[in-house]
């Protein structure tokens, strides 16, 4: 499968207007390379789904651009736009809502094949459908071809959604919480199937989840991006991010996550947040959006300027935190204003 990188370049998405304007995604940049897996992790309202929808071309950025092979998707000529549409497919969270209940599996899967003229004859269509169902682990395919969504379990429906995304040979699949509504015992089966697709077909994934443990499992060889209140706060290789998180928010998430192991989870190191409550997107704090909750908060330094996504940059591992930047010897990346304000505040309290 040929690959073209897809890039978000300073992409933002706003909802509402005036004082009611919500910056759901605010100045987020990253690239998905061909065949790569990137997991977006964050709590509800952090903008991870909106980011995914921009990447899939379902939402236009309010500011910034989506680039497909270096070209602005918003300005692509018809033909290339169509290619982009096929190249990026999305799998939605709710398998009960994303499949048409009155269509059977054959109809659901053959619609995109016909639309994009990917099969020429009836027999070719039949072969293709069988192939698709086998790829997503719905075997034997004959058993599923005539079924309607209501005759399938949550896990099976989600597999049909995946098969539908695969009909057009996508380069990237945006998977928005694809397993969160599936029973625990079936979840890993679905994840392992997606992993296999990634390995066998070389499909790139933008995998969106609130569950850091799932992200770790899915993108062990890939990257994780952690979002908070519309911003990317940390982005780096999964193994490094899980073992040595840089941003205090990532560290808080890791320390807060309960684990299915009584000894481990009861003796985990806890990070005490300064406040349990998440600020409203309508009334974002100045400076770093995490500062009202952050255990590392320093007056002046953290509430003056908003830290850039790459305030910390260590071999491609990025984190938006000035305190971490200073601790890691990258204090020169802190803007003058925050440095001065921080120093002043320290002098006052001393």
């Amino acid at each position, binding site marked *: 499968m040929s690959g073209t990188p897809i890039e978000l370049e300073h992409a933002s998405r706003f909802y509402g207007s005036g004082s009611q304007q919500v910056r759901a995604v605010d100045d987020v940049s990253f690239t998905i390379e061909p065949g790569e897996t990137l997991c977006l992790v964050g709590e509800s309202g952090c903008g991870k789904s909106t980011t995914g929808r921009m990447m899939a071309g379902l939402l236009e950025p309010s500011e910034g651009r989506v680039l497909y092979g270096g070209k602005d998707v918003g300005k692509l000529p018809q033909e290339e736009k169509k290619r982009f549409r096929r190249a990026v497919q999305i799998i939605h969270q709710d398998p009960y809502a994303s499949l048409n209940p009155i269509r059977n599996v054959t109809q659901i899967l053959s619609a995109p094949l016909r639309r994009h003229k990917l099969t020429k004859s009836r027999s070719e269509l039949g072969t293709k459908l069988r192939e698709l169902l086998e790829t997503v682990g719905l075997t034997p395919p004959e058993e599923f071809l005539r079924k309607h969504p209501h005759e399938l379990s949550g896990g099976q429906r989600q597999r049909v959604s995946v098969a539908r995304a695969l009909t057009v040979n996508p380069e990237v699949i945006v998977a928005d919480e694809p397993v969160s509504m599936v029973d625990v015992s079936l979840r890993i089966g679905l994840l392992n199937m997606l992993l296999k697709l990634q390995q066998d077909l070389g499909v790139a994934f933008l995998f969106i989840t*609130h569950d850091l443990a799932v992200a770790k499992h899915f993108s*062990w060889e890939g990257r994780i991006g952690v979002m908070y209140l519309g911003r990317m706060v940390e982005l780096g290789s999964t193994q490094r991010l899980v073992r040595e998180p840089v941003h205090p928010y990532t560290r808080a998430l890791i320390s807060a996550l309960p*684990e299915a*192991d009584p*000894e*481990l989870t009861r003796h985990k190191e806890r990070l005490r*947040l300064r406040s*349990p409550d998440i600020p409203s997107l309508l009334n974002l704090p100045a400076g770093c959006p995490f500062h009202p909750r952050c255990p590392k908060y320093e007056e002046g330094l953290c509430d003056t300027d908003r830290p850039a996504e790459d305030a910390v940059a260590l071999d491609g591992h990025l984190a938006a935190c000035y305190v971490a930047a200073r601790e890691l010897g990258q204090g020169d990346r802190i803007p003058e204003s925050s440095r001065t304000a921080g120093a002043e505040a320290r002098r006052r309290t001393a």
Partner: protein
Amino acid sequence: MSEPVGATQGAGRNQVLRVRDLEIGYSTDRGLVRAVRGVSFDLEDDDSLAFIGESGSGKTTLGLSLVRLLPQSASIARGEIVFHTASGGELDLTDLDDETLRRFRWRECAMVFQSAQNALNPVMRIRDHFADTARDHAETDGVLKGRALTERATECLQLVQLDPDRVLRAYPHELSGGMRQRVMIALGLLLNPRVLILDEPTTALDVLTQRAIIEVLRELREGHRFAMIFVSHDLSLAAELADRVATTYAGRIVELGDVEQVFYHPRHPYTVGLLDAVPTLAGEHQELSSIPGSPPDLIDLPSGCKFHPRCPYATDKCREEDPPLIEVAPGQTAACWHWEKVGSDWEARGGERHERDANRA
């Protein structure tokens, strides 16, 4: 089969709840849904018992039956639920008149419902929720009201780390999901119940909020003497908060034991399957596998052991006979014909698990 193991009579511990051979069904157009089948367990007054299982395993129905809030279409076909009240009496919950039931709920046993979003009345201030609960469930002569009510409500809200001044005046929509969930817990505590039932208390909440709720529940249990039953599909919640864990499948308890026993020495293949299916954040990358097949149709259950169509250990015996819950270790029971094999296979894999544990440290 009707005498579950694991009911220790330690010094100073009193039994609050005894459930025997409970059978609950829902009548539907398609037939009888057998949601709870022959469930038996005991609960001590400082016990924390978690029911874990997937959707449709009957765990919510079980929780609802303990406060007699089952919907109309449900009926208790058999069994007994005996509650030992604070005053030393015994109540059979399957047979209570409305007045006794009204006084039983919230004073003896309270429930925190799933999805706090929908459980609070959107047009009532939080203060009025407390007043309503007090009025409906308190004894007629000693209704909590006025200043006493405010004091008690304030106390309960502080226990769950909410600011009473702000929260009492607020409407539900002014609070976040995590705050509403904590309000629900505070409401449950209002009348000092001896048993608190929590149905998926942290589902649909974000990680940091979930952590706050877990810590609140842990502190409550340390400072106050009450028993807790919680029902969840989330194994990690049980790992955090439970003293004992009951794995449920197709309406039955298939394994019951101390939390360490169930997590570190499971003897039922379904428990093993669940443990193998949950990714952990700590440690190296693990191979995870799912349980093949889907949970059964509760109207048309398979013969014999209900797990046999998905079980790697299934033999003809499993297809024919449903295994009883038998003692597999002191305080641990499992319903599997092949529990010894399941156990030795698990322990044989122990090396690999210990390595994983070492990596986590």
